[in-house]
């Protein structure tokens, strides 16, 4: 780092150097915290290595040489389509505090920190995982994504996908199928690969293998919720954004084997008496792992998460009903939007049901509702969630947080109080 600074002394370059320095320091700190949590499975190492590769070593995404990467910003963009067109999807939702500080000058004060971080990364232009993307695909879901798409389009090759705001009408789904076809045409421009049934089928098979391993993992966690700490699990899920899915499948396979062996021997990662917590709400992106780490530190056990950078990142499989190009495109359009519990849709009752199912599956005792400051849509749904969980008798608290470390102590107090409430208060009957 010192060579870098002395070789190029302009203010801009020093700023970039400071950025890289701070960014990697934060990443190292959080990686160390994740790795230091007791009962870390050995098979977690490849996942944390991916995160290290991208955020500490400042290398690009882990992918084969010669394969272009396409930045996606959401679960709603089907990775299968991108793999089929000969590129690799990289989910670039920003979690970095350093980038957030840069983006704070560009985006309005009340904008969501995730988008501020993305804008920060884009404006400072030093992260290879961002710079090497040949196309940015932004789904137009919330207001911030809309303006992000406009901002990126001024600087990069960008395509905006118009996600329908409702999913029950057939016309809305037809619209999204058309959007995916337009997207595939744009991808052809980047990679010179034509859309074909064989490639789609191959890509879907590849992601199906990943989802098979993930489903195996989820079934294991349903049987033994305490077999792996939630923070470790979320680190593994975050890694899916930056690495080729065939690699991730292999790592997940090894992780499943290890957890299965441990569970059969009765080695749990958390003690039985720890209250089981589910976290839901705005995405938790590495290195913003404050809240999962705090939950584990303060005596709780994070057993499940209903966030899009966590379990939801690869949960819904495409149900290919018709083995033809159009059949697969329809299946991809359906799976990207219909089961998606993102609150940017008009009707999101399915999220309540999904959480109810998870409460049953993981025997959850308390829910932490995470809202990023500025994420209005998730905030809107808090009322509904509070009501529904009230009927079931499960305690829930709303935790608002931002991308900085100043609120860690406040969060610590609140989370500690919540965990005590469950342990000794209403929820202690379980």
């Amino acid at each position, binding site marked *: 780092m010192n060579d870098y600074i002395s070789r190029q002394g302009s203010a801009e370059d020093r700023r970039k150097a400071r950025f890289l320095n701070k960014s990697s320091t934060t990443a190292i700190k959080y990686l160390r915290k994740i790795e230091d949590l007791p009962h870390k499975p050995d098979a977690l190492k490849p996942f944390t290595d991916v995160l290290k590769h991208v955020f500490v070593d400042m290398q690009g995404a882990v992918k084969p040489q010669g394969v272009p990467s396409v930045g996606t910003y959401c679960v709603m963009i089907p990775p299968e389509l991108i793999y089929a067109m000969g590129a690799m999807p990289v989910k670039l939702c920003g979690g970095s505090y350093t980038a957030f500080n840069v983006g704070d000058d560009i985006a309005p004060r009340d904008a969501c920190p995730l988008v501020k971080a993305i804008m920060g990364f884009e404006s400072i232009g030093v992260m290879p995982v961002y710079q090497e993307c040949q196309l940015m695909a932004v789904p137009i879901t919330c207001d911030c994504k809309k303006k992000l798409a406009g901002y990126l389009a001024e600087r990069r090759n960008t395509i905006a996908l118009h996600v329908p705001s409702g999913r029950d009408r057939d016309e809305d789904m037809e619209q999204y199928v058309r959007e995916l076809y337009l997207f595939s045409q744009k991808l052809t421009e980047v990679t010179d690969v034509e859309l074909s049934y064989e490639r789609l089928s191959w890509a879907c098979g590849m992601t199906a*293998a990943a989802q098979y391993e993930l489903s195996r993992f989820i079934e294991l966690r349903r049987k033994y919720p305490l077999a792996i700490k939630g923070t470790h699990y979320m680190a593994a899920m975050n890694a899916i954004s930056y690495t080729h899915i065939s690699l991730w499948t292999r790592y997940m396979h090894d992780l499943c084997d290890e957890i299965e062996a441990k569970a059969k021997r009765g080695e749990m990662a958390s003690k039985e008496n720890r209250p089981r917590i589910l976290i839901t709400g705005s995405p938790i992106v590495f290195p913003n792992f404050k809240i999962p780490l705090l939950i584990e530190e303060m005596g709780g056990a994070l057993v499940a998460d209903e966030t899009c950078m966590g379990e939801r990142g690869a949960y819904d499989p495409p149900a290919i*009903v018709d083995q033809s190009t159009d059949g697969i495109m329809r299946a991809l359009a359906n799976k990207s939007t219909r089961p998606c519990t993102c609150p940017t849709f008009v009707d999101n009752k399915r999220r309540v049901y999904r959480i109810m199912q998870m409460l049953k599956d993981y025997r959850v005792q308390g829910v932490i509702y995470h809202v990023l400051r500025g994420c209005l849509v998730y905030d809107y749904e808090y009322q509904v969630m509070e009501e529904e969980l009230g009927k079931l008798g499960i305690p829930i608290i709303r935790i608002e947080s931002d991308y900085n470390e100043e609120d860690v102590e406040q969060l610590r107090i609140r989370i500690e109080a919540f965990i005590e409430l469950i342990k000794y208060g209403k929820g202690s009957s379980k």
Partner: protein
Amino acid sequence: MILSFALLIFGSRLTGTVFSNIQLPVLACPYNLDQLTSAGCYYFSHLDVLFTEGWQEILAFFGTFIVCAVLLGRVLCGFICPLGFVQDIAHEARQALHIEGVSLNEKMYTVLRLVKWIMLVIFLGIGFVGGNFCDFCPAAAISPALAGFKLSLGLGGFFMIIVIVSGFFKRRSFCNICPLGYILGLTHKASLFKLKKDAVACTECGACYEACPMGIKSIFTVREGKKGELSKIDVTTPDCIMCGECVRRCPENNALAITFCGKKVYNADRMKFMKQYAPKPDKYAPFLNHEKSDKHE
């Protein structure tokens, strides 16, 4: 379903040769032209003939028909009907060739439902105006042929070709307009086979709706039972042919199930779903060979 092939092969064969002496109350076609009068389908389309028989005959007919409908309901459509079998073969042929078909389209289903009502009226009423449904029924053209009797083409044969070609591009197209099928479906409330849904397990992915050859949307949209219950919601409709495609394509445990007398006989299972689509892992090994050279660049 794969099972449907095994059953339907037998169904086709049996209806062809074995049951020619028994008066089957329901099966969709007379098996050979001599035995025409023994088929239930014949009586429905020739109600004028039925009403000239003695009232014992009429009661026996309706009685056995209702027993059959309650016992099996439209499982006959999904698993036993030979014409269904023929359509399934056409569909699987298209799947193997990866040719695009007619995809889900609400307007198309609205039109098909209208055609179904028209067919129903013609089916039940044509006897009274002196016509004969069997003259142009596609099933009448194909069933005797499959049974080994002579192939009688003509108007029925022409319709049979239309049925097979449209069945190639759209799954089970004839079932959408089959009048006998709808009559069987009318007893769905009392039927022993039902389709049950667990709305909490359901993620509303819409796979069931996309998979359904009858275009039934209620299986996807229903969130609450009539009494407000959230699980074991009965979503059987008169259109449902009990083919089980929705359950097969459902990725959530227990979200959909076919039940017989309340017991689940076919349940949606996530791991089974995943095994359908997940290939052998070695198939994607190529990148793993690059792993060492790429990761540490």
